[in-house]
């Protein structure tokens, strides 16, 4: 029987391990993407790779990280002092820039060391090589997107595995930054490992392992109890991504959610097949989106761990948009398709419990990468950012404006920080008026951000909701779709949602992000 006092204490202790790792990763990292934008997650796992405790970082990493950890545990013989890394989306990753560093935590045993658990962190690197700077390209197969790293050993017996480091750094555009960020990821795991070993010493190995199990059961119990508050039934919904950047037609995601007492089945069988473009989501991304939605709908207070997912069964046939088959391109699956999966899940659940579900938020992350050769500093540069938009209105409140929604919560890069570090300037950064959907409660406003280029560069855009619109609920109007445009030699023209193009000094790119859907009839 689980002890309500010991489990509660261990819950806080384990989360604080993950938080301490996060604090160190953020402080120690090199790139703005990790330091300023906090695009990373840290977590503690048991010896089987179940996520036991996670700090409140990026939702898209929650469901996916255990699969990365499991891939490393399965394919490598990890010994004390070893550290693994992986980014392969088909081995538990999400997309190539998300690099996961996995450290087994061993304690001395009677005969041989005992695997106490695993600490791991995942961080979005600003470049992983491939056809476009930033490694978020308009690709048609994964090989174009960058360096694919299967589970490999980054460290062996506390020594750098130099061959792997050289191999990695030779394939990326900004090797110094990558090295700094990787060092920070190692430093984060190091502190996590130390904390876990200290806890094993303080409480004993067996009691600690037992409490890790208890914590999974605890989250499972909470999840089951909260699912039972939802009405039984089957709820269907569909929504689409605009296109995949190559073929013009919308990519439709269809879901049926079956709620049966304490159990849920999420069935994506009717979803469209995978596409040539990079909007394909690998299964871990879909899992993360499902985990995120149920965590939100069921309440803020369930500790995020693998136990939350036990009462939820997912049916996602291989070869569809929500479970891509190798070697489909996947760069945008993690950042764009994940948002649409959330939209369809919430749309379905709105039928089950309308009082708990908001209208659609912007439904895109507006991924922008700018790369090239920085003539001022005579070095390559790769810049990546995502832009907030409107949040969907709720049954009792207007949607927030100019924010990231659902599967991301990264910070912006300050206008002044951008100008110090890169050969472009931000000319405007404002709320986009009248972009939120009307209703009894108003959808949040999107954002307008204008970039002025100071020298030639290459720009890649992966954005959605430029055609389809974030839906309203209960009669509320949809939000305005987003809009991208370029000004070159005084002439302005529209730019598609997903595209890649060169720019020259003096050019201006303006991105208008979607507004949130409205709620209720005005």
């Amino acid at each position, binding site marked *: 029987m689980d002890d*309500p006092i010991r489990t509660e204490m261990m819950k806080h202790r384990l989360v604080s391990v993950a938080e301490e790792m996060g604090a160190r990763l953020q402080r120690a990292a090199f790139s703005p993407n990790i330091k300023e934008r906090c695009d990373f997650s840290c977590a503690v796992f048991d010896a089987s790779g179940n996520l036991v405790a996670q700090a409140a970082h990026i939702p898209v990493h929650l469901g996916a990280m255990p699969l990365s950890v499991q891939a490393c545990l399965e394919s490598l013989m990890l010994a004390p002092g070893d550290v693994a890394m992986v980014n392969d989306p088909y081995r538990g990753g999400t997309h190539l820039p998300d690099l996961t560093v996995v450290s087994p935590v061993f304690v001395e045993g009677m005969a041989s060391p005992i695997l106490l658990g695993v600490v791991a962190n995942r961080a979005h690197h600003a470049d992983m090589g491939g056809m476009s700077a930033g490694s978020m390209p308009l690709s048609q197969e994964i090989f174009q997107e960058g360096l694919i790293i299967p589970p490999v050993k980054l460290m062996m017996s506390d020594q750098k595995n130099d061959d792997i480091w050289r191999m990695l750094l030779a394939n990326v555009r900004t090797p110094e930054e990558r090295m700094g960020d990787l060092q920070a990821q190692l430093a984060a795991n190091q502190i996590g490992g130390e904390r876990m070993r200290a806890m094993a010493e303080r409480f004993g190995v067996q009691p600690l392992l037992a409490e890790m199990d208890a914590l999974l059961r605890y989250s499972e*119990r909470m999840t089951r109890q909260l699912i039972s508050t939802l009405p039984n039934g089957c709820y269907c919904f569909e929504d689409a991504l605009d296109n995949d950047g190559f073929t013009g037609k919308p990519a439709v995601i269809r879901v049926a959610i079956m709620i049966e007492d304490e159990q849920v089945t999420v069935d994506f069988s009717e979803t469209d097949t995978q596409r040539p473009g990079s909007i394909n989501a690998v299964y871990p991304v879909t899992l993360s989106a499902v985990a*995120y939605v149920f965590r*939100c709908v069921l309440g803020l207070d*369930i500790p995020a761990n693998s136990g939350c997912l036990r009462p939820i069964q997912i049916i996602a046939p291989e070869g569809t948009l929500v479970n891509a088959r190798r070697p489909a391109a996947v760069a945008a699956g993690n950042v764009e398709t994940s948002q649409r999966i959330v939209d369809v899940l919430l749309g379905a659940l709105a039928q089950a419990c309308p009082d708990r579900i908001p209208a659609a938020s912007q439904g895109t992350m507006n991924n922008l990468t700018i790369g090239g050769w920085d003539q001022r500093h005579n070095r390559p540069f790769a810049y990546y950012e995502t832009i907030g938009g409107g949040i969907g209105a709720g049954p009792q409140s207007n949607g927030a404006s100019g924010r990231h929604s659902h599967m991301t919560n990264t910070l*912006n890069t*300050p206008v002044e920080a951008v100008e110090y570090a890169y050969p472009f300037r931000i000319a405007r950064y404002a709320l986009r008026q009248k972009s939120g959907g009307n209703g009894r409660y108003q959808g949040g406003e999107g954002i307008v951000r204008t970039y002025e280029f100071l020298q030639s560069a290459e720009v890649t855009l992966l954005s959605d909701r430029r055609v389809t619109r974030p839906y309203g609920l209960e009669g509320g109007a949809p939000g305005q779709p987003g809009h991208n445009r370029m000004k070159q030699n005084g002439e302005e023209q529209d730019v598609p949602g997903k595209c890649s193009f060169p720019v020259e000094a003096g050019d201006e790119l303006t991105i208008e992000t979607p507004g949130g859907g409205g709620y209720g009839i005005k």
Partner: protein
Amino acid sequence: MSTSGQSSQNVWVGIDIGGTFTDFVIYSSSDQSLQRFKILSTPADPAEAVLQGLAQLPHHPGRHVVHGSTVATNAILERKGARTALITTKGFRDVLHIGRQNRPELYDLFPVISPPLVPREWSFEISERVDCKGNILTPLQDQGLPPILEMLRNDGIQSVAVSLLFSFVNPTHEQWLTKRLRDEGFFVTGSSEILPEFREYERTSTTVVNAYVSPVLDTYLGRLEREMKPTEFHIVQSNGGRISVAQARGHGVRSILSGPAGGVVGARYLAGLAGFTRILTYDMGGTSTDVALVHEAIHVTTEATVGGNPIRVPVIDMHTVGAGGGSLATVDAGGNLRVGPQSAGAQPGPVCYGRGGIIPTVTDAHVVLGRLPIDGFLGGRMRLNVEAAQQAFDEVSRQMVLAPRSGLDVRQTLALGMIQIANVHMERALRVISVERGEDPRETVLVAFGGAGGLHACDLARALGIPHVLVSPMAATLSALGMLAAEVQLDYVQTVMLPGNTPFEIIEQDLQREGVDPDLWVLSRTVDVRYVGQSFDLAVPLTSMFCEEFHRIHHARYGYSQPETPIEIVNVRVRAVGHVTPPTIPTRPLGSADPTAAQWEDRPVVLPQGIQPVPHYWGARLRPGHEVNGPAILVLDDTTIYLGPTDHAEVDTYSNILIQVGVTDG
């Protein structure tokens, strides 16, 4: 006044305004006497209690008052600041509304963003642009100002914040605007005056906070000054230093977190007298617990947030958790026992107070465990109802499945569990403030104050490997005492992005205005350094060895360094400290180690290994030199100390209780 010190024939009064009481500590430098008293606070008009208290003192022409004000904080939390407008570079009026574009909670489908202090309709733009090198790309379009002025007047705006892009590199445009606006009679804050540091959102937010609170603070201080005349008047700032009222007035943002600062300053001072310079302060109150780090100096941060508004001026790096004496026990959907963050507050308070509380609090847990004597609370003036507390625990235990620990009944198990869970929350806070700041808690002393701290301090220290706990007999008025120990302290920053220097004359003028004897100033310069390409920096003392020092600190803090990578200086910081002579704390020589004279009686107390009779001592009868072995309960006037079976306490010459913490809890 000619010197800064309390050495002249002066009376110094430290005043701390708390939620319930306003505390006064009076120090007379002529006879080195120290008095303390409390009166009830007057929350509707905090100045009232200050004036009432001062009226109880004999008038003294050379009287100085040092005061921590919550007026600025409350103006923000209650949204009762000045009608404030903002002027930004064209294209950026929404800077406060967008913020950093993140939402406060990840798993919340209905994120609530606290509205900025300046509504959108009072945010204005002016056409101009300066680049990151300070070159003017677009000259300021001065014809844009008259229409703005008209709108400011029509809307009855009192205070204006001006925050232009890169004004910290080239402030020409911003200075022109601030001058024009001041000429028009507005209270004006320019971002390059208050925080010449990059990152536009944080700088603008800091500027707006200053604009919003300063007029309110000004009114409050003006009233006090008028009514207290000819008293000299000083304010404790959020960085733990003191400044004169004249300087505080225009810089309200600098005193915004001055309330809790006094306690940390006081703890640092008393611990320093006892010989400890590396301490963790631990202030456990009714609803929350504040912890801070002192390593010689008080650890400050520039990453504070007040009511959702970032402020980037130095404030004491304090971490707060929602666990205190009034934290409530609940059972969650997964069957776990939770402690806090809900609190019984002052009303109804803990169940044992008998004021209508029915859910057990941490204080009730101590009563049930026998660690808080029901007839010793507040010097015996308030008797606690142990039966009511026990029944409340029975009610909670019915909602959960809990096997009693050996030797204990269910309610005692539950009460002990509550203490343990509250300790985990506070242990986490102490780890954040020490380990995450690169400080090893095992090399510090835990200084406990606040009503409930003494009951938890030894267990917390044990969990963190902290060898000593210090509890001062002045714990209850530590904050007011701290006000008198606060040094004059002024902080300056400038973003440079390369080697640069700070205008020394400004510092000199400011210090002269504080009346600090030039011989008593200490200037310390630090630089914020990072590797080129990195986006956060580390503060390093500016010496000829600062590069090596940077690599060393980087390695210590983050586990790696890259000596071959070039570094850059982001900000230059100067701190000017004017030393004051703090109050003399009375001492008595050490006497016998035998504490029998202070012994009260033995009573049953729940210890980790079961119930046993434990000696209780009267704190007021403990004398310097006395030694007490745990387990024991020491009942002081304003706090109670629990010594575990392996803990050992000694009373030092200042009457501090210094506890050597045992390694095991039994």
